[in-house]
């Protein structure tokens, strides 16, 4: 008897069951953020925007205004993504295209770094930042986050550069370009899908980053949204309603961004130049 693929309906049911907890969690977040009180998944009372008063009331319970945290989060994610894309694409080009002493060793080390559990470095990083005077600054955390992500970025971009034809670069050299011009005008435009993918990935990863700012930032003026959200759990009375609202506020940009950027994210796994 030939093997038949299971019906679409069965596949959908199985996948639906597996994703159910995530769906329920999101629904709970939505309901809790919008109603006075929720019993389980059952809202009590009316729709109420009181949970969202952090948007207009400024400082609440000694927290900095949410707009400061939002600004910090955007600054953090954008700067990390920018540094990561810049350094990774240049390093990846060098590794993919140029022969220099220690290239293989360097490649191996990048791979090890990429696999290294970053959390185990936290104490050392703490001391390094203190010595450099960057402890408790957003810039310090940006540097740490970018350097931890760059190895992955280099590997990813190297794959894209490896797919470019040598002849095209040779052609550009003969046409009168310098090595730098070849990189800027020929190689870089052709790995645009890779840059967009890496940029999207870096933005999302930095947006969701919690442990690094949590360890390396103390003062409220440098808080990111992740720290703002976590601060609710440190209080004796946890305001779950407002916490859910902040959570939603924090997640909303990611939803939007993912909808716009998923095309490039998928590219990470397929790679390559499309003519």
């Amino acid at each position, binding site marked *: 008897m030939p093997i038949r693929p299971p019906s679409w309906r069965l596949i959908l049911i199985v996948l639906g069951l597996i994703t159910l907890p995530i769906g329920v969690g999101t629904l709970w977040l939505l309901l809790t953020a919008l109603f006075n009180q929720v019993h389980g998944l059952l809202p009590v009372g009316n729709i109420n925007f009181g949970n969202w008063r952090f948007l207009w009331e400024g400082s609440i319970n000694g927290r900095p205004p949410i707009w400061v945290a939002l600004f910090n989060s955007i600054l953090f994610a954008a700067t990390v993504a920018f540094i990561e894309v810049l350094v990774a694409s240049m390093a990846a080009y060098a590794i993919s295209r140029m022969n220099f002493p220690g290239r293989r060793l360097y490649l191996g080390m990048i791979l090890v770094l990429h696999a290294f559990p970053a959390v185990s470095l936290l104490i050392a990083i703490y001391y390094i930042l203190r010595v450099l005077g960057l402890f408790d600054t957003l810039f310090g955390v940006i540097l740490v986050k970018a350097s931890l992500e760059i190895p992955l970025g280099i590997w990813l971009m190297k794959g894209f550069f490896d797919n470019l*034809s040598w*002849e*095209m670069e*040779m*052609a*550009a*050299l*003969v*046409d*009168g*370009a*310098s090595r730098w*011009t070849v990189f800027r005008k*020929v190689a870089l*435009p*052709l790995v*645009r899908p890779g840059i967009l993918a890496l940029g999207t990935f870096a933005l999302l990863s930095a947006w969701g980053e919690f442990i690094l700012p949590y360890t390396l930032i103390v003062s409220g003026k440098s808080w990111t949204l992740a720290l703002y959200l976590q601060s609710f759990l440190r209080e004796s009375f946890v305001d779950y309603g407002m916490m859910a609202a902040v959570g939603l506020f924090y997640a909303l940009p990611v939803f939007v961004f993912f909808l716009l950027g998923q095309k490039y994210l998928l590219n990470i796994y397929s790679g390559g*130049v499309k*003519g």
Partner: protein
Amino acid sequence: MIKGTDVTLRGLSKRFGKVWALKGLDLEVQAGELVAFLGPSGCGKTTTLLLIAGIYRPTTGEIHFGERRVDHLHPKDRDVGMVFQSYALYPHLTLFENIAFPLRLKKVPDAEVKSRVQSTADLLGIGHILNRRPAQVSGGQQQRAALARALVKEPQLLLLDEPLSNLDAQIRLSARAEIRRLQRDLGVTAILVTHDQAEALAMADRVAVFSTGELQQFATPDELYRKPKNTFVASFVGAPPMNLIEGVFKERAFEAGGFRQGLEGPHPQGQGWLGIRPEDIELRAEGTPATVLVVEPLGREALVMVESGGVRLQVLVPAEAKPAPDQQIHLHLPAEKLHYFDRTGTRVGP
């Protein structure tokens, strides 16, 4: 009108790791000439081309364009145009911007870029599709665009790396003639790398045959065909290839097993090779007896594989005169069409 340069290579070598891709090449290309570098893959012909372009730096030796020594110069300072096997067009740019690329790098003013790109493209018959991208045009048009990009900066030297091998057989023949005509009209010196001996013979003023990193022979197509310098050139140039029989030169005869061919005039002695082209062997009523093994009709002619005294030979005969398989025939090898090579494969006569 471009003034082509002459090119002189002296003692040119290139080593990759432990492998010598090119060994001590001496070669002179005259201004306005089209020279083909011919050889099987890995023979050093493309390496030589990339050395001339400046992509590789030579391990030893010198490259001169006219009076100017260029082997230490960056490719951009050599004033060379090049067409690659894959065409290497920039997929993110339109054909216009592809062709304009060398001019933009030279900071040529916009209006001049426009007119030069247009006139070069018109010359190659792609003036009407300049706003398309490489992926949106045919292979033949891509090849023309690559040629236009190489010619737009009016180089002194045009390098062509297997420019026709990605084309369909049909347009390949017309592209051959067109490149030749264009090169002659423009007066640019050109070097063509190819593994196709027919292409080299048809297009080039002179052909340099390479094997294992060494120049085997540098001569006109005619001389290459009539007087190959060694067995490699003899077997590589010409299709079907020359018959080469290994045997012994004796007094007024050549013997290989049961095969025997009488010789006239001066000839070598001892171990060696006897060569004769398939089209030079005649079928006669009398002569060396042979058996027909296989007959391959080729249209106008037929290629016949025969055996005589343990030696296999290919014979090209007019289609209407072709024998049948297993038929007993007689071969005549005209004395003036024989080639003699010594045991190392070097030509020793006539």
